[in-house]
């Protein structure tokens, strides 16, 4: 770059931050190799223990990379509300780790098993679907607001891959998520693989819409300036159902949808997830490189870089000399 070339005021639209899910098999390798990643993501609940080796290793990771704390157990859609113990642990972890983003799912897991007033609540330890009804939206909004008030920051809420569809529905899923973000100010975490898995299962259940067309329509219906993170992962066809197992490389159709998403949402931070049969770290890094490459080939759709996208980040990489996570909401 010669002296006459001005530095870009914004990071190029199609050069998103790219990270990987940091799982146990790679704790040592990542700390040792320190690969060029913009952030790492962990499942918050794996670090709820108040002390010990797990938290110590996360602190080491945090000293090298911004961390995205992704929850799988907050049960934001539960009619019985959010577990105060769970929220306490998350708040403590947020305080310790100072994450670049905090997220969980538009799902439920917690509830009663029977109607006996004395019976306790259980946690199904899964991401179970909630109906896209006004009642469920009210519950989800109240729970998200409670979490945001406690954490004193917006969270991002992720769309599910769901293996059941509730009969009751007042809204489509994009309408439901749009209402959620409008009412609570939360951000959205768009899992492109989940949308595709749902579309494939819809076809298995007799739907006639082309899965890719359905997914593009889904992405086009989401408010672009509220998307804080994109997730990419693999899935498995079992013949009579498609399972979002995070156990393989991202498939060509999901890469195609990812390019569509980046073209529409801009350079949204992107995560490669791999949770089943976790391969060597090099495979995840290769997927991350593919994400960068795919984003650069995204169709250009002018999207104003407003809200969480307006990072104004310089092109240097934060892992090089990093002590504090760069905020997603720097002043423009």
């Amino acid at each position, binding site marked *: 770059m010669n002296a006459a070339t001005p530095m870009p005021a914004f990071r190029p639209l199609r050069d998103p931050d790219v990270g990987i899910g940091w799982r146990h098999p790679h704790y040592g390798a990542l700390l040792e190799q320190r690969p060029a990643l913009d952030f790492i993501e962990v499942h918050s*609940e*794996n670090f*709820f*223990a*108040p*002390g*010990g*080796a*797990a*938290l*110590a290793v996360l602190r080491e990771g945090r000293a090298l990379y911004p961390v995205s704390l992704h*929850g*799988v*157990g*907050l*049960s934001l859609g*539960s*009619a*019985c509300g959010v*577990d105060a*113990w*769970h929220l306490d*642990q998350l708040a403590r972890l947020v305080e310790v780790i100072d994450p670049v983003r905090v997220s969980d799912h538009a799902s*439920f*897991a*917690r*509830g*009663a*098993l*029977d*109607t006996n007033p004395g019976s*306790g*609540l*259980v*946690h*199904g*330890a*899964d991401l*179970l679907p*909630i*109906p896209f*009804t006004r*009642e*469920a939206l009210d*519950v989800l909004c109240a729970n998200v607001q409670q979490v945001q008030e406690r954490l004193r920051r917006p969270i991002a809420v992720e769309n599910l891959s*769901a*293996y*059941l*569809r*509730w*009969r*009751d529905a007042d809204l489509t899923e994009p309408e439901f998520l749009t209402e959620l973000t409008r009412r609570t100010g939360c951000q959205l975490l768009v899992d492109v693989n989940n949308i595709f898995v749902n579309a494939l299962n819809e076809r298995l*259940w007799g739907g006639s819409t082309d899965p890719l067309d359905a997914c593009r329509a889904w992405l086009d219906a989401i408010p672009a300036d509220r998307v804080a993170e994109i997730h990419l992962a693999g899935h498995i066809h079992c013949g*009579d*159902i498609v*399972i979002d197992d995070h156990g393989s490389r991202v498939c060509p159709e999901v890469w195609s949808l990812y390019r569509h998403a980046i073209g529409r949402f801009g350079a949204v931070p992107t995560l490669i997830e791999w949770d089943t049969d976790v391969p060597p770290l090099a495979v995840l890094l290769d997927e991350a490189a593919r994400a960068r490459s795919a984003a650069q080939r995204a169709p250009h759709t002018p999207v104003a870089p407003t809200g969480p996208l307006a990072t104004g980040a310089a092109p240097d990489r934060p892992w090089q000399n990093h002590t504090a996570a760069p905020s997603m909401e720097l002043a423009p």
Partner: protein
Amino acid sequence: MITLALQQQTLLGALLLGPGSLAARDAQAQLEGLVLSPSARGLAAYRANGHALAERALAAAYPVVAAMVGPDCLNALARTLWHGHPSQHGDIARWGGELPALLALEAQLAEFPYLADVARVEWALHRAAGAPDANADPPSFALLTQQDPGAVTLRLAPGTAVIRSAWPVASLVNAHLRGEPTLSEAADRLRDREAEQALVWRRALRAEVRPCEAGEAALVDALLNRQGLVPALDAALAADPGFDFSAWLAQAVGDGLVLGACPHDHHATAIHP
């Protein structure tokens, strides 16, 4: 339209109530009317996911029991526990504490009566691994000579616990996890029905277990019950009149079992005023 709470209760019931039970079948039949697509395949996917999670969680918390009973038996235990004692929190690492009780009741495992105690030791190790961090404070030991002994107590390492057993549980666990003693030596102690009191604690970031004698067990139990040093020492001497506190303390500090001394708050004592 039924309420969201009822929809969620129905799905949780279909997934978590005992497979094949009348209540589970009722929940699944009710769910059929609440979902668009047939629920069986989706439910099977969620059930399989829950079972796989339970199996992984149990194998992670109980590696020695897993090695002793084999993967098929452990997975069956995990599924039984999953439905009999569902998780109450969203942190799966907290689930599985009822395994020792399940092992004690499992008729098919009656010929392995030590398994439940091995599981108790492993659960204590699992809890110790994530217990709140605490640093050693060597200068604080000056309190032992500067203060009235009745006004002092000892700070123990994170996760400290004593498990009493009629079986050589510490030897069995260490033989599997550390290779010391050897499996053959542990098997000899098992055959000889050597009773052990297992002392669990966390040294820095590593949860440890070793057998301990009656005096040490009584002392540590008393300290865990927030007693002051004097009544704790009384308890140790009652259990073992030859208990050598000075030798024990030197060893315990070196092992990271005792982190320091601190003033004793008499009001915090449950047993001694």
